């Protein structure tokens, strides 16, 4: 009887161990919030590498969050600040801040990310000055993209709808009005609404294209030289600035075609890190 009891207890103990082992195995991966907390704690403790590892792991798992991107940028910047810099840290810091600025809906975070970005880009510019390279770090956006970003995408849409209505009503009034005054008024309204309607539709389409099609990345390696499609360095070109934001036009094999200001060239994909967007 006693032996039987012992055997049963042993069996139960074995089952508990097996189940807990399986549970532990299943729980090998930390949750995103746990990883984030770990990263922030490491950041506050001055453990830059641990913070980077935690935030990178978070990014590897597909977690997109402006604060995580911002703190990741800070972790890389901290590693530079404490003298343990690894090549590419400034670029990765800039990437984190750019991503945070793009993703966030919090004006304060956007402001903090912009300030941090300025600090990092200033350091990059300082280093490029020392190396005798052009200081330009941010080539800015094209005119169309700048104009389209003046208003939110939906605002362009609403403007287009309003202008469409004004155009139609103006034309109608001009058509059916009996008095000259009304006809002139209708004509003026339609004449003003038509170009604004065209602009609003174009800008709405541009903003939509920007949202759905355009891929942007940040240069995360220092000394990445632009080359042509065959991989031959563009004669007379200077290395792309670390931390520069570029538009990715195409990618083949391990190379990506980018636009940076007037420059249209190819660089290794490993030199870039794409800016995440909300799914």
């Amino acid at each position, binding site marked *: 009887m006693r032996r039987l009891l012992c055997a049963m207890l042993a069996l139960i103990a074995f089952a508990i161990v097996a189940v807990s082992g399986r549970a532990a195995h299943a729980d090998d991966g930390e949750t995103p919030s746990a990883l984030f907390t770990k990263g922030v704690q490491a950041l506050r403790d001055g453990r830059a590498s641990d913070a980077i590892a935690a935030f990178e792991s978070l990014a590897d798992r597909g977690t997109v969050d402006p604060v*995580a991107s911002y703190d990741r940028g800070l972790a890389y910047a901290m590693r530079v600040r404490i003298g343990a810099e690894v090549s590419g840290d400034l670029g990765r810091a800039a990437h984190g801040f750019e991503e945070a600025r793009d993703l966030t809906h919090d004006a304060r975070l956007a402001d903090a990310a912009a300030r941090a970005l300025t600090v990092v880009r200033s350091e990059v510019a300082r280093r490029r000055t020392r190396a005798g390279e052009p200081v330009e770090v941010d080539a800015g956006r094209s005119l169309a993209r700048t104009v389209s970003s003046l208003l939110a995408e939906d605002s362009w*849409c609403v403007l287009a709808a309003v202008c469409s209505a004004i155009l139609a009503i103006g034309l109608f009034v001009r058509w059916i009005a009996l008095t000259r005054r009304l006809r002139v008024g209708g004509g003026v309204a339609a004449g003003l609404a038509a170009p604004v309607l065209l602009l609003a539709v174009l800008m709405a389409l541009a903003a939509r294209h920007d949202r759905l099609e355009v891929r942007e990345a940040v240069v995360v390696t220092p000394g990445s030289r632009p080359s042509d499609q065959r991989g031959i360095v563009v004669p007379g070109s200077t290395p792309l600035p670390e931390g520069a934001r570029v538009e990715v036009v195409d990618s083949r094999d391990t190379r990506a075609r980018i636009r940076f200001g007037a420059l249209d060239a190819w660089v290794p994909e490993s030199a870039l890190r794409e800016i995440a967007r909300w799914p």
Partner: protein
Amino acid sequence: MSPRPRTLLVVVAAALMALAWSVAARAQGTPQMQLQMDADTVGVGDVVHVQLGAQSSDAAPSDPRLTLPAGLAVRGQSTSPTQTHMNINGVQSDRYGLTVDWTVQTQRVGVFTIGPASITVGGARFAVRGATLHVVPAGQAPQRPAPAQPPPGSPFTFSPFDPWKGLLQGFGQNFPQPPDLQPPQSTQPLTTDPKLSLDAPRAAYYFLHATVDKTSAVVGEQVTFSVYEYIDLGAQTAIEVDDSDVHDATAADFVKHPLLREDQDALLAGYASIGGRTWLVKLVRRWALFPLHAGDLAIGPMSVMLARPRAAVGQRTTEALTVHVTEPPVAGRPPGYALGDVGHFSLTAQVNPRDVDQGGAVGVHVELSGTGNVPSTISTPAREGIEWLAPEVHEQLGGIGHENFGGKRTFDYVVRVRRSGDVSLGELSLPFWDPDAKRYDVARASLGVLHVKPVASAPAASADAPEETLPGLPPPVDTMEGEPARRAHLDDVPLFWLLGVVAWPVAFGLAVGATAAGRRVTQAWRTRSASPAAELKERLAAADAASEGSDARQVDAAVARALEAAAMAHAGVNVRGALGGEVAERLARAGVAQDAASRIADLLRECEMARFSPEGADVASARDRWIRARGAIRELERRA
């Protein structure tokens, strides 16, 4: 228990353990061993080669030893380990071999027993009985038989992969080949290895064949690439490869590490039976390839030029291979994992000294060892107040047993400490993907705590401290923002474009268009309703209706109007108001046949007369006129 039985118990336990060990050792199986000499009678000062061949299916034989009596001295030793792994119908069988060649020089006359020779297999040592050697005075030894000539057509001496062999033999040295490298003797049955077999020979006399140990791998996982040369042992002609025209395989998407030494001879892999012929198979290349990125990565062919026989001159190439490479899974990926860190690794670290002044430095010696793509860098635990200077790196990497690449890398860091007190250096960790266990693992080495004595003039505290890098960074944020509520953009909805933007101008356009269309329809209706054809239709209907009635005058009037309308519709002639023969004349001018024109004119006249006759006409004759008028109208219509 008294001391004696206790002692007895210990002795029995020891005996049982020894027995168990012995049984375990025996259970591994006795290796097959053979000791041979290239001569049994030699002169003083001559050299004799003693060769030990050992084969085991349990573990690789190692630690060969040869016992020699006084009067003989070992002048050199060479060992050739071999491995054969076969999987036939899912049954794995492994074979490990070791061939040891001792060069022994005789020093005095006598009869000597060479051996026994022994090797270790799986911790147990096995020996083979020795052989007898007769040493006679110099010059009195019998002539040694000439070394076995290679069989006709054998390219042993022509292999591009062991070019020095022919040169060494040319010096007249009597270097016997290991048994497995000797051409097969007619008296010995040749064992072919099914693993080396192919469906058909890739070319006559000589060809190359390339394999990889796996066709799918993760980024950084070792893929073992092997190239074998197959030589037809039955060829009745000399086979010669142009050793100046050898092109290695290309593997641009891989990091390549040779697993065979560059100066190493091609290894005998075995014999294969292909297409009813026996082929000698040699391993000429073995590389550990580490994929650099995901995708279907190509390994280009290797090629050599066969120079002889003339009938078969041409290039011999290996197959082009492809390896499907993916990234290790994201699920369960530990923080800090770097893509490409794949294998089995361990980390050890030593910190010296542990007590240091503030601003001083300590040395950290880190050893990273294992098999696989041993990382070239380690992420150091960067912390505020602790500066890790660039390490001095030493490496001992290479092939491990012709199968795996690995070894160790040591990193010697100088770490400067700017803080004081008990400073934790943290922990070194290297997450890696274990391809065998198919899971992530982390190699760790704790660095412990430093005891740092504060110094007033420490660099961190001094005014000469370097300018701060990246000043003015904002503080971190503690709470994640989270994904915003997803909402559809207006322009993603087709209805917005239809109703919001397009509908207004379209509505206006429709209004304008509808008005214009209405006008056109009205106009068309009016035009159509006033046409001769419409009028004729109307008149015909009226005549039909009138003929049903009893008023003969009304019938005649309707018939006359129908005829006039028919003349207008079908001949384009207005005969209304025409007098006498004028009707027929007008119709004839319009191309109506004379008789038809006359008939119409007559009918009109009859109707006129009947209508205005004082006595009036009867209905029957009026109806008859209507029947004739319809015939005339049909005739006009046919003409039209």
